[in-house]
């Protein structure tokens, strides 16, 4: 490991962080504008042209806000929760290959690492719920935990279909294996299960049980304010971007463009296709948030255990059957 290698890697990490933070900040604006248009409203458009400075104004406001930590809270765990949830959300990005040559780390068990780190994110939420010393967050934390572990199973099973197709855990090799056919075509069932479970993993509507405002005030971050609240918010949007990128890498062919467009500009077209696909998945998330009403909690759990899990298992058996008899 030479010095140049380390410096280049630090630069790459900085680039990824800056781009990600900007993307996250503007994702909040894009989501608010889109949801407003879906609902025949206008949305935030006062701060700067088209409301483009809104995310920065929000960030500055949250930075200067007073922080109220409840007297009953367990201080250490209360402090730990947003940090875990943000770090876990960020850590996943380190193994995602953005283009063939631009990635932070190519790890041989990348898929397992992604699943492991995303299940660590559950700790952030349950710690927040428990340590606040308040009743709504406690209920929300328990719900979130049960929901996330249930849908994590469906997510894991859905990914196994892709592993059967590719024969590797490395995300980069999975994308390389999709040069001729993107896995969402042979794995359509797995892709649907992955998307639904991904929405539930990111705690997004219509599965945003942990923070449904008409039952639980604001869910697990009811007692959080100022920067700690902002960190939860950040973590949630990074999780959305993560699921978008994972769906792109696992099912939508990663950096490969459709064959009719050819190779295009060296490297840049790869980046373009990756970003386009990720944005499409994220737009799909915003779309269903604006369209679908929230599930009831018992419906949510029944759907996870009775529909998604058997479907994902069926997908594994079908895929393995096809792969076993066709050379």
């Amino acid at each position: 490991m030479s010095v140049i290698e380390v410096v280049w890697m630090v630069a790459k990490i900085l680039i990824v962080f800056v781009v990600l933070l900007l993307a996250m900040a503007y994702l909040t604006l894009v989501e608010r504008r889109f949801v407003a248009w879906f609902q025949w409203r206008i949305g935030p458009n006062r701060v700067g042209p088209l409301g483009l400075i809104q995310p920065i104004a929000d960030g500055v406001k949250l930075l200067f806000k007073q922080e109220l930590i409840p007297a009953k809270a367990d201080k250490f765990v209360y402090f730990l929760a947003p940090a875990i949830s943000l770090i876990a959300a960020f850590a996943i990005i380190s193994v995602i290959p953005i283009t063939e040559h631009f990635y932070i780390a190519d790890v041989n068990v990348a898929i397992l690492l992604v699943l492991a780190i995303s299940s660590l994110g559950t700790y952030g939420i349950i710690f927040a719920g428990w340590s606040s010393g308040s009743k709504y967050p406690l209920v929300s934390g328990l719900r979130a935990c049960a929901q996330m572990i249930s849908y994590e199973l469906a997510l894991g099973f859905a990914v196994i279909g892709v592993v059967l197709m590719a024969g590797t855990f490395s995300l980069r090799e999975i994308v390389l294996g999709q040069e001729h056919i993107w896995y969402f075509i042979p794995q359509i069932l797995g892709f649907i299960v992955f998307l639904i479970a991904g929405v539930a993993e990111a705690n997004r509507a219509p599965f945003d049980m942990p923070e449904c405002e008409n039952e639980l005030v604001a869910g697990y971050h009811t007692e959080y304010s100022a920067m700690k609240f902002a960190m939860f918010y950040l973590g949630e949007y990074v999780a959305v971007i993560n699921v978008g990128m994972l769906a792109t890498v696992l099912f939508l062919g990663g950096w490969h463009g459709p064959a009719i467009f050819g190779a295009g500009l060296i490297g840049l077209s790869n980046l373009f296709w990756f970003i386009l696909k990720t944005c499409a998945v994220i737009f799909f998330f915003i779309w269903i948030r604006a369209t679908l009403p929230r599930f009831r909690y018992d419906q949510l759990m029944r759907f996870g255990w009775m529909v998604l899990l058997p479907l994902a298992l069926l997908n594994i058996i079908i895929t393995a059957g096809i792969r076993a008899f066709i050379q």
Partner: protein
Amino acid sequence: MPSGIGVTCFAGFKLGVTRGPQATALLHLGMEKVLDPVYTYMDYNWVALFIVGAFVLVVICLALAAVLRPHRPDFAKLTTYECGEQTIGSSWIRFNTRYYVIALMFLVFDVDVVFIFPWAVAFRMLTFGDTSLYFQPIGPAALWEMIAFLGILLVAWLYAYKRGALEWV
């Protein structure tokens, strides 16, 4: 809730080890073709560096906010939120046992996921063999054995279903 996948993965989370002693020992047996793809893609030190970066980001955010924000707590601000009512008692109370049942169910299935992942990775090699492998491919038996395993899992799922572990009302 500790995740089975998480535990397995972090047990193998060796920072900075790209070629361990086990790898060298196995290389002498002439299995480099099998092991090479496994041992070349282990950039765990970069993953660790990235996590350190995220940690630094968190510290910067919190420190900056701590310096800039005002700090004027009073009694009302420090109470927990209960829609304007006076808070009664502790919130660390007993809760529904269904959460434990779900956690147990999760544990059962998550361990199975851990078993299925290595099978899925090696499936083509198991069925058709590989030029670099010494053992004979076992053909469709790789599929039948996993179906038998999933069948046992299905019995567990049906049992939980009959006992009402998956119902919430």
